[in-house]
């Protein structure tokens, strides 16, 4: 406790006590309600990703350190054949947590993880596994609520941020229904932001590097962090700290399998997959155009760091074929914007709703009724929202229209953010 207090004291550069850091801005009963809501959802909703990455992380208990090589080498004999697409700390964290929680998980847990028959939920213990596996998310989720408060001075704004984070349905769905492990890098990215606010760029860079060691997406914030520095010395310090720590974490896992699994999936490929053809095989990429353009605008203007992170993510998410879980990346920044800028609230809600609606329309049961499989297996036979829409309209066209709207609303939000309003 003493060490934690010292750490927090250094973190905030004030003589804060644990009590003051975790002082609730709302009543204890309301806070308990936020916990209750989450606990009611945790065991009963399922997205296949939680089973996949926990299955892969379960090999840590057997002494497997380099999961990337192991999964490629044993692909034929493993029941789940996906590659591990996260960065190493996700594997280390989940593997360690499973070792600690193994007395609660029980003996049948490993067999349940490897059950690829589609009937794993008919086994006793399924609800227990989902509850225990999602429990760390609850801790990080609540920590984010407390961290968000640190970005405001006024008590009323702290309270708003706390309530908006804990009671908005979007993050609850993303974290507990879609079982989103990205909550860990999201929290670390937020810590990095707090350090920037406190002008401690080295620690900010360390937090960002740790976040990237869980999932690579926070690397997109690095250019924003670097270009706001006034001297070459600071630029070098930030870059070197970030790169050195990330490389040190990656080195034990580095292999051809790691390169293929971790770098050839998700954001790193989708960011460059959309393009407008110029002919002769040459394309221009809208995501690269808008990201580089915004970095220039960010450099020239007086944007705050969190605003920069928000705009960068809204550009990326609007321009790529995103996974619904990626929406969590933008959530803390969206809450900050929601508190600070009243004029964008409606647009932000509209953007979030459309961003949620698009993946539901994919031809993928896991994005809609498949989430209800822990209730009953009969949801396997559900008609997909895609097929329901197909009876009246071309679903691909609908997705295209919604995605176009997403881009236009993102531009509207960008312009609205520039309108001056009384700030904190």
């Amino acid at each position, binding site marked *: 406790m003493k060490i934690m207090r010292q750490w927090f004291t250094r973190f905030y550069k004030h003589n804060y006590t644990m009590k003051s850091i975790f002082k609730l801005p709302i009543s204890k*009963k*309301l806070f*308990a*309600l936020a*916990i*209750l*809501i989450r*606990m*009611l*959802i945790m*065991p*009963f909703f399922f997205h296949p990703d939680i089973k996949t990455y926990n299955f892969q992380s379960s090999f840590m208990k057997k002494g497997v350190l380099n999961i990337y090589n192991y999964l490629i080498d044993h692909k034929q004999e493993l029941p789940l054949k996906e590659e591990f697409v996260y960065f190493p700390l996700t594997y280390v964290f989940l593997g360690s947590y499973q070792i600690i929680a193994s007395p609660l998980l*029980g003996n049948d847990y490993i067999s349940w993880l490897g059950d690829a*028959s*589609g*009937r794993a*939920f*008919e086994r*006793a*213990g*399924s*609800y*227990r596994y989902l*509850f225990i596996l999602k429990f760390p998310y609850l801790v990080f989720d609540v920590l984010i609520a407390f961290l968000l408060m640190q970005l405001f001075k006024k008590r009323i704004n702290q309270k708003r941020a706390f309530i908006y984070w804990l*009671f908005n*349905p979007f993050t609850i769905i993303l974290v507990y229904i879609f079982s989103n492990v990205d909550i860990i890098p999201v929290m670390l990215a937020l810590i990095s932001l707090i350090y920037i606010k406190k002008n401690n760029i080295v620690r900010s860079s360390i937090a960002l590097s740790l976040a990237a060691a869980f999932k690579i997406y926070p690397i997109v914030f690095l250019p924003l962090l670097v270009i706001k520095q006034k001297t070459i010395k600071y630029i070098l310090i930030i870059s070197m700290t970030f790169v050195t720590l990330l490389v040190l974490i990656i080195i034990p896992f580095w292999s051809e399998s790691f390169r293929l699994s971790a770098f050839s999936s998700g954001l790193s490929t989708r960011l460059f997959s959309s393009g407008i053809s110029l002919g002769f095989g040459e394309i221009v990429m809208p995501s690269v155009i808008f990201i580089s353009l915004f970095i220039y605008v960010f450099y020239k203007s007086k944007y705050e760091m969190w605003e920069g992170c928000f705009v960068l993510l809204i550009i990326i998410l609007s321009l790529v074929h995103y996974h619904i879980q990626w929406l969590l990346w933008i959530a803390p920044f969206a809450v900050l914007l929601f508190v600070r800028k009243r004029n964008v609230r409606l647009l932000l809600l509209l953007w979030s709703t459309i961003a949620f609606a698009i993946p539901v329309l994919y031809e993928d049961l896991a994005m809609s*009724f498949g989430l*209800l499989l*822990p*209730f*009953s*297996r*009969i*949801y396997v*036979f*559900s*008609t997909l929202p895609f097929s*329901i829409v197909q009876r009246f309209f071309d679903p691909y066209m609908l997705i295209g229209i919604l995605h176009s709207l997403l881009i236009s609303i993102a531009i509207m939000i960008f312009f609205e953010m520039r309108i001056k309003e009384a700030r904190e």
Partner: protein
Amino acid sequence: MKIKLYALFAFLFILFIVPLVATFSIREISFDKNIDIIRLEKLSGEKVFVQNFISDGGPISSIGINFRNFNQINKKDLYFKISDQKGNVREIFTNGVVIKDGSLMRFKFTPILSSKGDIYTVSISSQDSTDVESLEVGFGEGDVFVNKVFYRPENKYFLMKTVWNDFMERYFSDAWFFRIYTLIIISLFVYIFWPMKLQK
């Protein structure tokens, strides 16, 4: 207190009402487990594959069979027939063009009412196909090639009851989880709502 109630009802709605309402998206169900394909047999010429089965659900609405059609090379006619002891009940003419390689091909037809407990015979043939470009049919143990029989649910109440029963069965099946989880949830409920003072 009103905010608490609204929030709680909203999430109870998600937890209990949504799963029940979601049953409206279910048009067909099947009680069969996937058969493990142990061999593939070519369907060509005069060859006819025949299998009997007993209907154990409501109106039969479709039947799923596993096909291999490498590179979708087969583009010949395929004849599907389902009959009972009195004669043909439903028949479908289709073509290899629509059969994807390695897929479960579902032969959909107008539901056969009052089929529960009756014996039916499924037969498939493709007379124009030759061995070179034939479709291959997946067989499980015991010369079974009908992978799944789909039924139209008798009514929505039946589906809701199934969801509720499955949920209850799973919830009570793990005694450890049931005790601890229920205790946590009830404790939180009591802490939050007791004593409850509703504003006028």
